[in-house]
């Protein structure tokens, strides 16, 4: 069941996005860039979700007279479910990003900086 590996180019893209996102998160000290990094990781995930639904020989998952979903006992239709998953994931990613940005704004107001290294409290 590893048909989806046939989409290696998309998979590589998805992995690259995740890697880039993590790299940004790990190397940038600015909060906004970190948020962008997280967003890129999200995008990578979304791309991954879409990728696993499909492989080059698949057909649309709707039964019509000409569209045979099963060929030689194998299902060749694309999987419709991940598309609903990716919608959810996108929405959640959006919500998280919005909240993160709101917090970032507040942090800038209260701390006067966006450098993550400086956002900590001394023990009192």
């Amino acid at each position, binding site marked *: 069941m590893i048909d989806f590996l046939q989409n290696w180019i998309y998979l590589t893209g998805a992995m690259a996005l995740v890697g880039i996102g*993590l790299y940004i998160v*790990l190397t940038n000290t600015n909060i906004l860039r970190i948020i962008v990094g997280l967003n890129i990781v999200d995008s990578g995930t979304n791309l991954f979700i879409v990728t696993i639904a499909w492989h080059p020989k698949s057909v649309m998952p709707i039964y019509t007279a000409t569209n045979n979903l099963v060929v030689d006992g194998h299902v060749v239709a694309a999987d419709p479910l991940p598309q609903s998953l990716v919608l959810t994931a996108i929405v959640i990613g959006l919500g998280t990003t919005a909240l993160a940005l709101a917090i970032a704004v507040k942090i800038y107001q209260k701390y006067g900086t966006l450098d993550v290294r400086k956002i*900590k409290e001394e023990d009192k």
Partner: protein
Amino acid sequence: MSSLLALLLVPVTGSIVAAIIQRYRLAERLVSFSTFVVTLLFLIDIRVGDAFTWSLGFLGKNIEMGLQITPLSIFMLYMTIAFGVLLTFFDLTERSKMKSFLLLLTLAASNWIFMATDFLSFFFAWELMGWASILAIFGGRRTAESRHGALYYAMMSIGGSYSMLIGIFLLSNLTGSFSIQQNVSYLVSIMTVHPWWVLGIVSMFFVAFMVKSGIFPFHTWVPYTYGESPDGFVPYLSSVMSKYGIYGFLIFLPLTLSLRNVPGVLGLPWPNYTLVWFGSITAVVGSVLAFMQDDVKKLFAYSSFSNLGFILAAIALFTPIGLTAGLFHAFNHLLFNGAIFITVVAVISKVGITRMSEMGGLWQKMPLTFLTFFVGIASAAGIPPFAGFGSKWMIFQAMISHGLIFATVLLFFASIASFLYLMRAFHAIFLGQLSHKYDNVKEISAIGKITEVFLIGALIFFGIFPGFILDPINSIVGSFGLKPLPTSGYEYINGFFSSVNMVSIFIVVIVAFIFGFLLFAVSAKHKKVPQEDNYTAGQIPKDWNLTPEMYQFSYDFYEPMDKEIAPFLKIKIDGFFKGFGDSVEYLGSSIKEIFTGNVQIYTYLAIGGLVIFVIAGWIVW
């Protein structure tokens, strides 16, 4: 059967009541006293062989739990509860910050410990006793130090409990049961096949017992804790609570009976031999360290575990005379240590300090307390005809009958050393020069006086009629399958080498005293002079500015001995535990640095962890 439950429920009820009314000090103390009395009344109804069982649906199975009265447990119960009655009676007028409800909770736990037939309830009660006593120790005279003492005790005690917990489960996994009896007989059955297993499991238990009794090398907490706990609680701590460990040892010592035919050291199986040495070393360490103490509570803390060393050495022999001697000494220790600590508490409550070198001459102000203390230390030193002689004498006989000459000499040295530090305390507190700042010190209240008179009476009575204690001890010895010592009347102590008729000794001493006082009366008259009237022919030049304190020699009473016992002091067990604690703390402060507060570090950690796992998965793949 229901009175067995009463032994648990009465103290718990009393504890709850005392906790509720703890703002009203006298009422709280009265509740505590009456709870002890009621418990004692219930105890009178209880006979050997009474049992009560129930089962607890827990851990997915029904665990049989039970209470049972053995000769040993009824002996221990009487000791603890009767002593508690005395102590709480004395405490009615005592003003330390001790919380009575914790004492009562400890009582419930201790009753349970002595009656438990399964390890589950034994451990439950043991832990209950542990934390109740830890909390009771908070609240000493000096807050920071008492906190330190309580924490030290807590660490050792909880460490010991966990060790015991491991032992319990190692055992119950082998036998599938929590019953003490089944587990012990299982150990007996595998004793010859797997001696090292048995040793390992039993030593897990022994750590807990050694901690509780303050046996070397786990003795280090004792002075800190006794020295700093509330004055009203110290007598209970040192007289009663240290005996729990002894009770624990006695659960497992019958194992060694099956080793009697295996060659050991001097006819003793090697576990017994080792424990005898632990006991002897404890006795010596306690005595020697007590030399150096200036704090009276600490001094008697050392004295306390030194005596526990005597007891352990004796019971570890597990011969009829050894067991008898050990249990007898346990009883005597309860009495004289109680007398000593109660008088010490009385003195501290009057003078308000614990440093002995700042006391002195108090016999003029507190004569009855002085006498009680005198009888107490005479008993502790093992002087006939007071209680304490018989047991020490039997311990020596028990030891020497096995040819344990080094250990016996060590014990005798500990005994002589105890005479030294007792004299020192006696001198520094009660004798010597009375400082003017104590001119207004009064003798303690009537309740305290009654307690003290009772203690004097008990020390003399049980000194003359040891048979009243030796009889129950003989039945304990019999219940362990050993042959009890012969008995020949209440006034006899029958040892291995010789027996003593305490009444005749008492009569001889009394007659000699009558003669002495007659001689005192018929010889020439004397004249009473004040304490300043000495040394300088009655003249004290004003410009010397002499004060009584300057005439008091008690600060470093045995200073010349310092050099001789310096090698002993170099062995810093205490330092080991402290250093261990320090390094744990250092480790903690290093590990804490992981959590820097920088989210990128956390992300690195998380990603790093993930990568490590993936690599690990890859390798396994």
